[in-house]
């Protein structure tokens, strides 16, 4: 690069190289974050959250015990409960196997809730199901790319 080039030409030379792209983007993110650091004290945690957590260490479903009656109404603080008429049903439901686990063991809450049913499934499949649609599609697409490249080159 010649010394007598104007600043504009020099910037142009930098941005015209694809290899510098990542660096430029990272620089931008750093700049925004540094500015964001200034505003950080003004960000407060909103106390009235959706799907809040309640922990009950004595429950066998800990940390996912959200109460409720199976096949009955369960209070789930969704954004639009009226759009999901059966909200809370999945949360309260335990399969026979997980019911048995819950009756016999303690400290297996995560396993029990991950088995079909439970609050996370409620959110992932029912109230925010569209997120999961998109997410599985992303997985689908990404692996389509990877396996196409893999099989073509191999």
């Amino acid at each position, binding site marked *: 690069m010649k010394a007598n080039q104007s600043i504009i030409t020099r910037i142009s030379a930098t941005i015209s190289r694809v290899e510098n792209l990542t660096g430029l983007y990272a620089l931008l993110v750093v700049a925004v974050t540094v500015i964001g650091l200034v505003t950080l004290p003004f960000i407060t945690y909103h106390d009235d959250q959706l799907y809040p957590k309640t922990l009950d260490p004595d429950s066998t479903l800990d940390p996912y015990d959200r109460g409720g009656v199976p096949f009955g109404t369960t209070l789930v603080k969704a954004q639009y409960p009226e759009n999901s008429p059966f909200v809370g049903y999945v949360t309260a439901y335990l399969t026979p196997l997980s019911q048995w686990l819950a009756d016999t*063991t*303690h*400290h*297996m809450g995560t396993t029990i809730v991950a088995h079909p049913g439970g609050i996370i499934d409620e959110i992932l499949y029912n109230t925010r199901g569209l997120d999961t649609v998109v997410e599985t599609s992303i997985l689908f697409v990404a692996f389509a790319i990877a396996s196409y490249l893999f099989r073509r080159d191999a």
Partner: protein
Amino acid sequence: MIALYVVAAIAVFAAIRATVERNTGRKLPYVNVMNFAVAGALVLLLDHPLSLVAAAAYFVGSTLEANAIASTYAGGGRRE
């Protein structure tokens, strides 16, 4: 619960020794001591039959890790 404090202190001691030691082969026994201590601590922290499984899983897992590191450090199994 003096046992728990003893075990935790030994874990810290072993971790420090393992960090200070420079030779990889001699590091591993220290790490082994730490694994023993942590596995014991898991059971002492929570008195429940599943803790035994957790301790065993942790111990077997970390032993496996040490085994793999040592074997790779030795240059793999095939060359002997």
